[in-house]
C-alpha cells in the first residue's frame, strides 16, 4: 500500500515513515507543509495520505484544509488526519461528503502499532477510522434529551462505538472478545433500534451510523 506523509516535525515524520515501512507500507513521499502535500498526492496518487493538522506556515488547521482540497481533487486517495487534539467539528467536515476513505486519529494512537496500522489500511481501502475520543464527543452530543441511544443496552453502545470508529465486524468481535455471530446480532439490533436500513458493506453501514450520530435531534 502506497503512503504519503505530511508532518512538520522531522522526529515524528521519520519515525512514522520507519514504522510504516516496517509494517510493509511503501512510503513514497514525506513532506512538511500543506502545499507540498497537495502536490505530492496529485503526483503520486497514493492509497493513503497521512496528514498532521497543524502545518506551516500558519500552524492552524492547514492539514484539514489540505485534506478537504484533496478529497475533491484526488477522490481515490484515502486521507488519514492525525493531530495532538481532536475536535468533533473537524471530523464532521471531513465526513461531510458522505464518502469513505477518511480517518481522524489522535497522534497518541501511533503507540498501539497494530491498531494504527490497521486504521491506515482501512482508510486506504475506502473505510473509515475515527478516534474513540471523537466518537465519545458524538455520543455526548446525541445523548442529551430522550435520544434513541437511550434504548441501547450498554453492550450495544460499546458495539456502536467501535462501529463508529470504523472497525469491521471481526475487529469488533476481537476487541470485545465475542464471536462474529454475536457481533452481527448486536449490530442488527442497533440498526433496528436506530431505524437505520441494513446494508451489505461494512463501510457503507459505518457511514450511515456516522451520519446518524452527527445529525441534530
Amino acid at each position, binding site marked *: 500500500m502506497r503512503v504519503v506523509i505530511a508532518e512538520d516535525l522531522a522526529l515524528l515524520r521519520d519515525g512514522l515513515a520507519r514504522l510504516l515501512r516496517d509494517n510493509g507500507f511503501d512510503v513514497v513521499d514525506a513532506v512538511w507543509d500543506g502545499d507540498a502535500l497537495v502536490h505530492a498526492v496529485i503526483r503520486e496518487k497514493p492509497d493513503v495520505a497521512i496528514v498532521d493538522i497543524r502545518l506551516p506556515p500558519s500552524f*492552524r488547521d492547514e492539514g484539514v484544509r489540505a485534506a478537504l482540497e484533496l478529497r475533491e481533487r484526488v477522490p481515490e486517495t484515502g486521507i488519514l488526519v492525525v493531530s*495532538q*487534539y481532536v*475536535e*468533533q467539528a473537524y471530523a464532521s467536515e471531513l465526513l461531510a461528503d458522505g464518502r469513505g476513505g477518511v480517518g481522524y486519529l489522535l*497522534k497518541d494512537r501511533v503507540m498501539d502499532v497494530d491498531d494504527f496500522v490497521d486504521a491506515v489500511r482501512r482508510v486506504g481501502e475506502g473505510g473509515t477510522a475515527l478516534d474513540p475520543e471523537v466518537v465519545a*464527543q458524538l455520543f*455526548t*452530543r446525541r*445523548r442529551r434529551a430522550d435520544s434513541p441511544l437511550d434504548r441501547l443496552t450498554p453492550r450495544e453502545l460499546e458495539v456502536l462505538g467501535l462501529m463508529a470508529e470504523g472497525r469491521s465486524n471481526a475487529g469488533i468481535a476481537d476487541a470485545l472478545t465475542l464471536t462474529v455471530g454475536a457481533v452481527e446480532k448486536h449490530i442488527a439490533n442497533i440498526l433496528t433500534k436506530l431505524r437505520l436500513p441494513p446494508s451489505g458493506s461494512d463501510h457503507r453501514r459505518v457511514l450511515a451510523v456516522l451520519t446518524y450520530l452527527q445529525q441534530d435531534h
Partner: protein
Amino acid sequence: MKLVSRFFAPLWSGKTYRAAAYGLVLLALGSAAFALLIAGWTVALCFAITPLVVPLLIGLRVGVGGLATAEAATAQLIGVDVRPRISTPGTGFWSRGFATLKDGSFWRQQAHLLVGWPLALAPFCLISSAVELLTLPAWYRWDDSHDFLGFIEINSPREAVLGSLAGLLLLTLSAHLLGPWSRLAGWLARALLAGDGQLTMRSPAERRAIRVRALTIDALVSTIVVAALVVIWMLTGEGYFWPVWPMLALAFVVGIPGWVFLVLENPTVRRLALGSHALAIQVGVSAILSGFLVAVWAITTAGYFWPAWPILCLVVAVLVHAAVVRARREHRIEVLEASRAGAVSAQEAELRRIERDLHDGAQARLVALGMNLGMAEQKLKTDPEAVQALLAEARRGASEALLELRDLARGIHPPILTDRGLGPAVAALTERNPLPTSLRVDLPRRPPPAVETAAYFVVAEALANIAKHADASRIDIRIGTENGTLVAEVVDDGRGGASVAGSGLTGLRQRVEALDGRLRVTSPDGGPTNVRAELPCES
C-alpha cells in the same frame, strides 16, 4: 352533514376563543395606552425646553414599554412570541433623552398601541351584535322594549327566534373571520412589537449615514417651512414679523441634533469636554437652550433679563456634570491600576498552576516511563516475558502523559480558538457538555485575540460551574457585540445562588477587568443564573 360541522367548527375551536380574548385585551390596553399617550406627550411637550423633559420622556418610554410588553404577553394567545424592549439604554442624562427619541422600537410600540384598539374594535362589534341577536328571545320575553340594535323591530316570538338564528349565523361567521383577523394581528405584533434583538448590530459607518440623513432631512424641512411662512407673511401684508417664532423653534429643533452629531463625529470637541460625550452634548445643548431663551427675551420686551435664572441653572448643571466626569476618570485610572495588578497576580498564579501540573503529571510519568525502559533494557536477555510487561506499561504511561499534556494545553489556550475563532471554539465546548444548550453567536468580524480568549474562558468556566453546582436542565449562550463591546452571556435555569467571589470566576474577573471589561454574575436563590462578560473590542 360534514359541510355543516365544518361550518360550525370554529365555534368550538380553542383558537377562536383565544383570538377573541386577545382582542378584548387589545381593546382594554388600547384605551389605557390612548390615555397614557395623550397625557404623557402633552406634559412632555409642555416641558420640552426644560431639562425635566428627559425624565418625562424616560417615564413615558417605560409606560409604553410596559403596555407593549403586556400586549406581547397576551399575543402568545394567538401563537406569537415576541419580546418588546422595555427601556432605551443610554449613559448620561441628555443622551438617554435623545436615545429615547431616536429609539425605533419606542415609536413602533406606540404605533401598535394605537393601531391595536381599532383593530380589536371590528371583531368586538361583530361579536357583540351577534350575541345580542342570539339572545333576542330572552330580551323579547323579559324586556319590554321591542326595538333591538336600534333598527330591528321585533313583534312576535317567531321573529325573535328567527333573529336568534340569524345571530347564530353571524356568530359563526365572526368566528370564521377571527382566523384571518388573528393572522393580521399576529403580523402586526411581530412587525411592531418585536425587540430589535437583544444584541443590535450596526457598523459605525451605517450609524453615521443614518444620522447624517436624519439631520439633512430635518434641516431641509425646516428651511422649506420657514420659507413658506415668510412668503405667507409677505402675502398677508407684512405686519408684525411673526415668522420669527417658528424660525426660532426650528433653529432649536435642528440645532440640538446638529450639535449631538458634531460631538459624536468630532474628537476635538470631546477632548475639550474631558473625553466625555455626554458632557460635550450637555454643554452644547445648554448653550443652544440659553441662546434660545436670550433670543425670546430679545424679541419680546427685552426688559428685565429673566433668562439669567435658567441659564444659571444650566451652568450649575454643567459644572456638576464636569466634576462628576473628572472624578470618574480618576476612579477609572485607579481601577485600571488595581486590575492590572490583579491580572499580573492572576497570571502568576496561573503559571504556578501550570508548573505544578507539569511537575506532578507529565514529568512524573516520563520519569516512570524512562525507568520502565531502563529496566526493560536490563532484562532484555534474561527475562523476555518481563520485558514485554514493562514495555506495555511504558506505553500506557506515555499515553497518559500525552492525555495530561493535551488537557493542560487546552486549559492554556484551546487550539480550535486560534484555528477557527470564538464561535466554533464555544460550539466545541457545548458539544462536550451533556446538557441541552442553545448557542447564538453573532460576530461580524473576529475580535482581538485577548478578547476572544477571555470570552472563551468565561463561557468555559461558566459551563464548568453549571455542571458542578447548578443542577440545571438547559443552558443558553449568547455572544454578540453591542456598540463595539463584545458581550458573552451564559444563562442557566439551575438553582442559582452563585457568586463571583466563591468560584473560579475570580481569576476570570481579573482577566476581564484587565481588558477594561466587566464581568457580572446575577444569581438569585432559585435561579436563574446569568453570567455576563462585557469586553470592549475597540481601544
